[in-house]
């Protein structure tokens, strides 16, 4: 077992025992489900909308080469510097290079999972720069020195009380249980940071090829301030963010909002197409767009699972996943958790190290059912399992399946197997749940049903 796998198992055992955490997450996500369903119902035809979205992303991803060049050319035409990064290291070096060149001291950031993926904050801080997260949830987890718990709700594992304590400790604010007051405490700190920051770093929700613009979706206005106030703006995005046409946003913006948070639309949706143009009153003097591959092209080369690049990072699959709901976001140990994380992490970070995430699924398919762009998530988990076993089979597991095939295909052996089982079961009962019990993984928490005295086939044979 890889270290990552044993950490996952250990953490899962710990988290499933934490009933308070399980209740907290379940309550939060149940509320989400209620509003999400209301918003979906407001669509004239939700299944048709999903189909249209899936087809648009299919077109975008299957012609990524053309769309990316179009996107970059359009941006460059308005004076944006476009950078191409094959790896996380390259992306970090590009951004560090810009920050150093500008002799920046302070950096303000809006939410970007891609920056988590390449550990940008650590790199910037190690190089001596101050980085402040401006999204409230991200601001909170940054104060706790934690990564985001969930790709859309970074601090959903914390209660108001815990946030109040954190603010009191770190920001010396007076304790409060009012969400508005907590928001105001963060705002007072952040407003100063926007003004003093030399550089603003953002992610992107969509990259519109036709017009060369990035689209950012948010609820707090923090991304707008991050983009508008500092002199230099840097946007870091994965190459899969492409949408072919501007009009595609008419579908994707509400779809992202409904699936992500259960809102009809998020409060702010902004398009950025370049640095401040002559005659314009605001906007950054310099605009850099960093396009990140980081093994996405390997996923692109896999025809079977290419649709995983359709993902718009709405988090809907995490929200409905019974595994996620019981083990929580940190157990995965990945930037992208939940079903989509289990599907793509083996591609992004190595199959053998991360195959356990594909095994840790009951294959219930709730993720696939909810995905707004119709990624075949739970079947991709099956494919990852197959690929992992093909590449590096487990000796014992393969032997067990081979032996089972021999027995299952021969009625006489199958019959003997049942008889032996009936003889062994009373003995197993004596050691049930102890370390000696070969069925301990099951019997530690569950009874095993008794083997029937007369099996169906015994009955059938007697009857005919």
């Amino acid at each position, binding site marked *: 077992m890889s270290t990552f796998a044993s950490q996952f198992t250990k953490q899962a055992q710990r988290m499933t025992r934490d009933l308070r955490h399980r209740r907290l997450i379940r309550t939060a996500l149940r509320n989400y489900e209620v509003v999400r369903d209301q918003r979906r119902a407001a669509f004239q035809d939700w299944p048709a909308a999903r189909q249209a979205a899936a087809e648009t992303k299919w077109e975008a991803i299957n012609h990524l080469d053309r769309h990316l060049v179009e996107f970059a050319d359009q941006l460059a035409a308005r004076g944006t510097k476009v950078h191409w990064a094959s790896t996380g290291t390259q992306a970090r070096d590009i951004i560090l290079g810009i920050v150093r060149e500008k002799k920046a001291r302070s950096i303000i950031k809006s939410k970007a999972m891609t920056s988590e993926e390449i550990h940008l904050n650590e790199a910037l801080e190690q190089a001596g720069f101050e980085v402040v997260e401006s999204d409230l949830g991200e601001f909170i987890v940054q104060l706790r020195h934690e990564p985001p718990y969930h790709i859309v709700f970074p601090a959903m594992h914390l209660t108001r009380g815990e946030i109040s304590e954190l603010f009191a400790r770190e920001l010396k604010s007076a304790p409060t249980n009012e969400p508005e007051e907590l928001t105001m405490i963060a705002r007072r700190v952040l407003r100063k940071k926007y003004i003093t920051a030399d550089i603003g770093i953002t992610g992107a929700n969509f990259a519109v090829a036709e017009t060369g613009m990035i689209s950012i979706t948010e609820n707090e206005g923090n991304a707008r301030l991050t983009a508008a106030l500092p002199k230099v703006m840097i946007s870091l995005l994965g190459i899969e963010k492409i949408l072919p046409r501007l009009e595609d946003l008419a579908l994707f913006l509400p779809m992202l909002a409904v699936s992500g948070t259960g809102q009809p639309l998020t409060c702010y949706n902004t398009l950025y197409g370049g640095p401040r143009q002559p005659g314009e009153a605001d906007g950054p003097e310099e605009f850099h767009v960093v396009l990140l591959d980081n093994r996405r092209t390997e996923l692109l080369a896999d025809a079977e699972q290419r649709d995983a690049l359709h993902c718009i990072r709405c988090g809907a699959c995490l929200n409905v996943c019974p595994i996620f709901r019981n083990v929580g976001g940190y157990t995965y140990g990945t930037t992208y958790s939940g079903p989509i994380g289990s599907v793509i992490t083996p591609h992004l970070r190595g199959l053998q190290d991360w195959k356990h995430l594909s095994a840790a*699924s009951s*294959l219930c398919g709730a993720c696939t*059912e909810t995905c707004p762009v119709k990624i075949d998530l739970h079947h991709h988990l099956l494919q990852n399992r197959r690929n992992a076993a093909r590449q590096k089979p487990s000796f014992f597991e393969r032997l067990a399946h081979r032996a*089972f095939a021999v027995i*299952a295909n021969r009625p006489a052996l199958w019959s003997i197997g049942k008889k032996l089982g009936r003889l062994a079961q009373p003995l197993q009962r004596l050691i049930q749940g102890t370390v000696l019990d070969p069925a301990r993984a*099951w019997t530690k928490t*569950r009874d095993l049903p008794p083997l*029937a005295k007369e099996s169906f*086939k015994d009955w059938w044979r007697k009857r005919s």
Partner: protein
Amino acid sequence: MTITLFIPCFVDALFPRAGISVVQILERLGHKVVCPEEIACCGQPAFNSGYWDESRAVAVNVLARLKDAETVVIVSGSCGAMVKKFYPQLFANTPQAELAKQVSARIWEFSDFLVTQLGVTDLGARFPAKVTFHDGCHGLRELGIKKQPRALLAKVRDLQLVEMSEAETCCGFGGTFAAKFPAISTAMGEVKCASAIETGADYIVSNDLSCLMHQQGLLNRQGSKLKTIHLAEVLAQQ
């Protein structure tokens, strides 16, 4: 018509009464039931674990035995999904590809067969109890079976169906998953069982015994009086 019955391995060994009930119901409706003894398992455990060659070793036997069967009825949504949905993938680009597609087209999960194929919902059953229904994920999401078992239960006399809030939430069985990740599987099962208990039902009914085996195993440990029962056993009660 002649119906070929596919009794999955664990139904044969652990829950014969479900299989017997299916035979009784189909015979009462005037059909001839045959059951090839040479079939034990559909090959799903190996398939789901990623061992597709080993899965094919089991599944190829199933295909050979079902080659001439006109109509196959299987007593499990999960094993039904394996044959109907996954065999065509498992046998793609093999000599059995065509046969896998044919068998896939001729196999029915039990409740789907009664309602969709035979158009029967009232089997004259009586079951005086309050029940809640568990949708097994494979039956629900791979085969799209949701209304069929409810249409059948609606016609059972003296039966009261109360839906649980987590009816469509996975109970955490998931085949080998239950043994590979017992802590997660158990936590999921606890959520499911709590939701079922909340309804005040006497029974959890399902068309998937593998899920019920897991739920009953947990309920017993919790000391709960709630029982699990296969849909066919409910429908066979007169």
